């Protein structure tokens, strides 16, 4: 089997998901053993610019320049993997869509705001077609490995379409609701092995919502704690604001 050619690209993001690859340690070498990395700006000076078998794309699409760039990448990649929440669901960059753009640009850049064009944050699949989704802020390495293997095998990867609670229970964590704190686990799709709750914190919903969340039920549960609705909505939208741009 010829080793597939892979490119790693980044858009608006923190590059933490790319870093997760380095965090695999020597394991990354076995992975790299079955592919040929042609482009990876963060750690490589080499460029390639031709056909790729797999493009791994990190980050959200936030300006006109990025739209063109992602379209070019799509055209030369047979398989495109949206990598990390910024890419798969817009992630934290989506919070920008809560604001009036000129206002937020002025707030950040003052009178020079005109230098900094911006448009609504979009997830990658809201601009070009995506073949595989690796959710998470940051991505969860075991899932990365699973998806890359699926991509190499040429079979689909189905993102778990059930909530984080499933994994949380299997890890026998004390439920955050028993600790009287609100947790987004019940509406967030699993796959991270309930990473945050295992470490004593709540789930912030970084992997996006399950396909058919009981949003009303969840809001009811959240609202029980007497937090202003705006904050509850903020909480649900921290990662999931771009969901509004998805076709129903």
């Amino acid at each position, binding site marked *: 089997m010829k080793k597939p050619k892979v490119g790693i690209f980044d858009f608006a993001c923190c590059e933490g998901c790319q870093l997760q690859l380095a965090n695999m340690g020597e394991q990354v070498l076995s992975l790299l053993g079955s592919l040929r990395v042609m482009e990876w700006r963060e750690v490589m000076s080499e460029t390639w610019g031709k056909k790729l078998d797999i493009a791994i794309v990190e980050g959200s699409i936030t300006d006109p320049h990025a739209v063109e760039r992602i379209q070019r990448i799509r055209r030369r990649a047979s398989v495109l993997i949206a990598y990390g929440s910024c890419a798969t669901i817009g992630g934290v960059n989506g919070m920008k869509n809560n604001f009036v753009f000129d206002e937020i640009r002025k707030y950040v850049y003052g009178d020079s705001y005109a230098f900094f064009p911006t448009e609504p944050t979009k997830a990658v699949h809201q601009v070009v077609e995506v073949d595989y989704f690796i959710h998470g802020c940051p991505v969860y390495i075991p899932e990365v490995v699973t998806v890359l293997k699926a991509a190499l*095998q*040429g*079979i*689909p990867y189905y993102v778990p379409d059930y909530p984080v609670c499933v994994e949380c229970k299997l890890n026998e964590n004390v439920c955050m609701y028993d600790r009287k704190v609100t947790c987004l686990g019940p509406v967030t799709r699993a796959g991270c092995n309930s990473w945050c709750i295992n470490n004593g914190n709540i789930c912030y919903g970084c992997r996006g919502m399950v396909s058919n969340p009981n949003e009303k039920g969840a809001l009811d549960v959240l609202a029980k704690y007497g937090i202003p609705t705006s904050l509850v909505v903020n909480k649900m939208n921290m990662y999931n604001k771009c969901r509004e741009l998805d076709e129903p």
Partner: protein
Amino acid sequence: MEKVVIKDSGYRLKKATILRTKNLTRNEKFFEIALKDGSSLDHEPGQFIMVSLLGIGESPISVCSSPSRRDSFDLCIRAVGKVTRRLHTLKKGDEIGIRGPYGRGFPVNIITGNDLLIIAGGLGIAPLRSLITYVLDNRRDFGKVHILFGCKEPKEMLFSDELEQWSQRTDLHYACTVDRADPEWAGNVGVITTLIPGVDIEPLRTFAAVVGPPVMYTFVIKELLKKGIPKRQILLSFERNMACGNGKCGHCQIQNLYVCQDGPVFNYEQIKNLSEAF
């Protein structure tokens, strides 16, 4: 952690070899398969097997050939996901794993000696082909045989050469229809239920065998009941999500019945009150 090999495990695979493949339509492919150890599958018409691709997964697939052919069996597979798409890339000589056969097929012992009304919608022809070929192999054991077949478009028609042959036979009655015609289509147009009133049957000695997409059942059953076929003689095969085939994993349950063990073929009397069935 200790580990032992289990000989009797319900998850053990039998090796099988693909003898022949044929593309039936854009999405459906035909496979003739033999067990590697030369033994016979020994299935009943309407039973299914778990087809296994190591490293990818398993899928329940109906056997679509007659049990009277003992040295090999046929599958007809629609490419929809992981296992089935990969199966479509396999060729003659490739190896797969199988488990089974599983479940209860069409009760041939009970049907024998009676008339048959076979109603197939789309891919439903696959399990029914097993019954039809069995009946044709033992034609003298059965009374009148009607075959009604419907699909969405002419180009989705499976086993068209065989359908053509059946339509030529004088010892059975064959009719087919499509939901949407194309320019070359000269036959019936309309849903399959439109064919039922036209068949001439003696309801009390007729068994109806129905397999098709879920939406089809309610309408077809209504027509069959109108014809006066007893509920016990209406046989339906169900498709559900399935992981184990051993009546444990829970995915295929229709209320208190397990499709993989109690089915996939049920008579209407058994399930008429089960609202999850329809």
